[in-house]
Structures are given as C-alpha cells and as structure tokens.
C-alpha cells in the first residue's frame, strides 16, 4: 500500500531535482586538484599557498644582481623602475611620500606572490621558488626588516613584521 505513494514521492523528487539542474546550463567541467594546484599561485597574508623552498639575503643578492638590478638599481635604490628600499618616515605629513616595499608594503607574503607571478618584467615566472624566497630575503634585508642570517620560507615569511603593517584602514563612504 505504501510502496506506490513512496514511489510517487521519489519520482516527484527526481523530477524536481532534474528540473532544478536544468535551470542552470552547468557547462563547467570539474577541475582536478592537480590542475588547480598548477594555477593557484596566489599567497594569502597568512602565508597560505607558500610553496616549499627557502632562501637567504646572501643568496638573494646574486639573484638580484643578475635579474633585478638593471630595472631596480643598486641595492633596490630604484631607477629606471620602482624603488624597493628606503622611505621610512616619509608617509606622514606633506612632503613627497617614498612608498617602497620597506616603507609601505604591509605584508611580506605579497612580495613573494608578486615577484613569483610578475617578475622579472621581461621573463615573469622564470625564477625558481628558492630564488623567489632568496630575492625577497635580500629586499627585506636591505630594508633592515630581517637579519642577515634569516632564512625565508613558508614558515618564516608570513611572520615577518612589515613596518607599515598597521598603516591601512578600510574605506567607508562619507556623505
């Protein structure tokens, strides 16, 4: 007696779910974890996504000289392109603000993310993860943010305290 009604109920549910599925085109193909891993290179401020590997300021100096110096100058002094070092104490007031990795960037993880995806300008994504860690270490050291013997890795980079870490406030509209 109860079987027909439960069958009908099941049929109705099946029909409803078919209808629900039909309402969106659903043309995306499921992405496999290994496919996602290849593309997902963004690094959160907590360091989530940082790859294995490591580098020191000294190792980074060699990478910098070979790959970064022509655009960013000796010791990150800038010219012809962005200055990477210095500028502390220029943010408040009315004088020209010198915004560099050292004076302005709130997170060291951003440096890793950006260098790995976009630098060097003419050959982005050509540095190994060790080289990226090393060059980040070198730039942080030039800014006096880490020690000469510090090793940058997935464990240490997110813990680096950037000088302007608390320099940002979320915007809200004023009328």
């Amino acid at each position, binding site marked *: 007696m109860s079987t027909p009604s439960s069958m009908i109920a099941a049929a109705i549910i099946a029909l409803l779910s078919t209808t629900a599925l039909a309402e969106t085109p659903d043309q*995306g193909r499921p992405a496999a974890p290994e496919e996602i891993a290849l593309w997902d290179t*963004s690094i*959160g401020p907590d360091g989530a996504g940082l790859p294995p590997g490591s580098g020191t300021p000294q190792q980074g100096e060699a990478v910098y000289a070979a790959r970064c110096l022509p655009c960013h100058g000796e010791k990150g002094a800038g010219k012809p392109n962005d200055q990477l070092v210095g500028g502390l104490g220029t*943010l*408040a007031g009315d004088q020209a603000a010198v915004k560099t990795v050292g004076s302005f960037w709130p997170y060291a993880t*951003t440096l890793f993310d950006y260098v790995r995806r*976009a630098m060097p300008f003419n050959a982005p994504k050509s540095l190994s993860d060790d080289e990226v860690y090393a060059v980040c270490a070198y730039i942080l050291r030039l800014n006096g943010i880490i020690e000469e013997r510090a090793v940058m890795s997935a464990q240490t980079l997110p813990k680096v305290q950037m000088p302007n870490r608390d320099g940002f406030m979320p915007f809200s509209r004023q009328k």
Partner: protein
Amino acid sequence: MNRRRSTGSATEAAAGNGLLDRRSLLAAGAGSVGLAGAPSALGAADLSIEPWMREPGSPFTGYGQPSRFESKTVRTSASAPGTTGAGASRTPLQRLNGTITPNGLHFERHHSGIPDIDPDAHRLLIHGLVNRPLLFTLEALARYPMETRIAFIECGGNSGALYQKEAAQLDLQASHGLLSCAEWTGVRLALLLEEAGIEPQARWLLAEGADAAGMSRSVPIKAADEALVALYQNGERVRPSNGYPMRLLLPGYEGNMNVKWLRRIKATEGPTMTKDETSKYTILLPSGKSLQFVFPIETKSVIAYPSPGITLPGAGIYEISGLAWSGYGKISQVEVSADGGKSWAPAALREPVLPKALTRFRLPWRWDGGPAVLQSRATDGSGYVQPTRDALITERGSRATYHFNGITSWAVGEHGEVRHVYA
C-alpha cells in the same frame, strides 16, 4: 538663419557670467549652426560641386575606420621606463560626444602589455571555497544566458594629478582620460558561482588575469551581484586591449578590479592582499595612514566642452557640455558655474541617465568675452555632492594619488583660450 534674440524667458539667465536656462535654445528651429558667435563667412561663391560628387567613392572594407580627417581622435599613452606595454592610454574625451566610448578609444591600463590569447586555449577556473571547482571554456560560456549593461570604467588613478599642489597644464584627456563607457555583454558571475557552490565562509573573490603580470585583485563577494564575465564590448568581442576573450565587469568599481583576460576566480575568506590592493590603489592621508579597499568610484563630473586645448572663436552663445558619473548609482543633478563656483545653474541631463554609466549634461552659455571660470558639480541619487578640490585636499592632502573626484576648473581667457586652474 533666423537668429534668436536674447529677450524672453527662453534665454533667461540661470546663474552668473552668462549661464542660461537649461531649456533655452531647444525650441524648434534653434539649431546649433550659427549660434557660436559671428555669422558664417560662407558666401554663395563658395558653394561649388565638390570633387567627391564627381567620381564614385571608395569600395567596401571589412572593418570600417574613422574619416581620415579625424586622425587626431586617438588615445595618448605612456609606458614605464624600459617597457612598451606597462602603463596607460587615455580616451580623448574632449573629441567625443554622447556617452559611449568607441572600442578603439577605450582607455587602457596594462601591467605587462596586451597578451595575445588564443580563445580556444583560454580557460576560466572557479575554485577555492566552493563545493565544485569548475573550468569553463569560451564555448561553454556561450551557452549561458547573457545580459547586457552600459557601464563606465574609470581607473582609480584618473585625475590623480589634480591632487598636486600646482595646477598642471593638462587637457581633458590628460586629466580625466582614464575613463570610458561601453555596452558590455556577458554571463552573470553569480550564476557561475552558484553552479560552483560557494561555501558560506567565503567573503572575498580573488580575480586573476592571464597577462604576463598575472594581475590580481581581491573583490568583496557582494560585488558578484552585479558582476558580468563580459565577452562582448559594444556588440563585438571584447578587444584584446580590454581583456579578450573575457574580462570581469564590476559596474561602478575602480577600473583595476575589472580584471582583464580573466582566467581565475578563487573564493576566499579574507582578501589576498595583492600588490595592487596594498602598494597601489590605496589613499595615503596626511596622518601617514592609508585608506584601503576604496571600491566604488565616487560621484564626479567634468566639462568636456569647452576644455583646455579648445579656443572659443569669440563672444556669443555656446553649449557647455560634459560628463557625470557615480559608481554608487545614477546621477541626479549636475550644476554648472561660469564664475568659479559663486553661482550655479542646473544643467540639462541628456537621456538615457543610467546607473553606473556616463551621463552627458549640457547648458547654454552666453560668453561675454570676459574672464570666466567654468566648473561642474554632480550629485548622485544618494544625495552625495561632488566636493570642491579644496575640501578634498583638506581631507586627504596632496599625496592621495587615487580616487580624485573634486570639482575641476577651466579658466576661459579674453582670447577664448581655456586652461586648467585651481579655483
């Protein structure tokens, strides 16, 4: 031509220094020809049969181009030292009318040139805090319902030079040209996110482009309500310079967030703190603190005609015309001043007035040939009024760089020359 007289209510003064009522000069027969001052010198002897009426014209072309006489209607661009494609190009707003920017003139901001993307090889990945990570081809997206909307895009750095202490001699293209407006068609991002099944703790989306810089920005998830994955721009495929084969369109949000060459959307709990949302696109205040996540473009307007580079030929009647826009909604009013802000007259808004799109305003003006300072001031549907430059500088200082939306002043000199001033 039957020239109108300046008597009667139709040409009543609406504000100081010659501003006329916005309803003036719209009556039948009052065309624009001849209104600009001295009667035309054209005589009967000048009317001949022109050469282009004596031979057949040129053949069809596959993709049409503007008249060869319009060769000055082009973008201007500048690149970072040592690069050819990392910089910006600017829309020649002073040479356009209406509100839609032709695709070849839409402003550009590239961080590492324009990628040459094979549309068949391009993929859009949606992943992160979702139940089902999904990969979409262009072919797959073509099977989705599409929506069309007209939206402006303005670079967060547009008009940044107007924060500087001295008024730079800029024309409109240089001061406001990182602004364009187009009709965009594409798939609602919300629909794709729904299919992927966003998890409740997801509050942000990281959007990433397929350019060499992999430009990426964090977008609050509420922005997805109005977002499109845009495939078409003014009816044709999105131009490579604007994100071919697909870009993120976030109506009203600063240009940088409308990620071009969109390849990846990752749902996250918090913002990723990318280079562009920390070291750039933040507003540095005199306190040394910076405002971050300044997303919608605030209410703004500027006069396009007359503007620097244009010389008025003589005293007489002109139509002041310009653009107004708000990333928060519709423009509700634009006022114009010809005396540096002492008195204001309401301008007429040309239809259609659409939310988060450029709106064209106009107002007749009888220039007496003396000094004038022209300004426009927009109000949006929320009641926000575009601030004076002084008010903005008082609040933000001169090093804020981004999101300048202050009132812009054009001084008209005795010879009809127009220049940028602070007033």
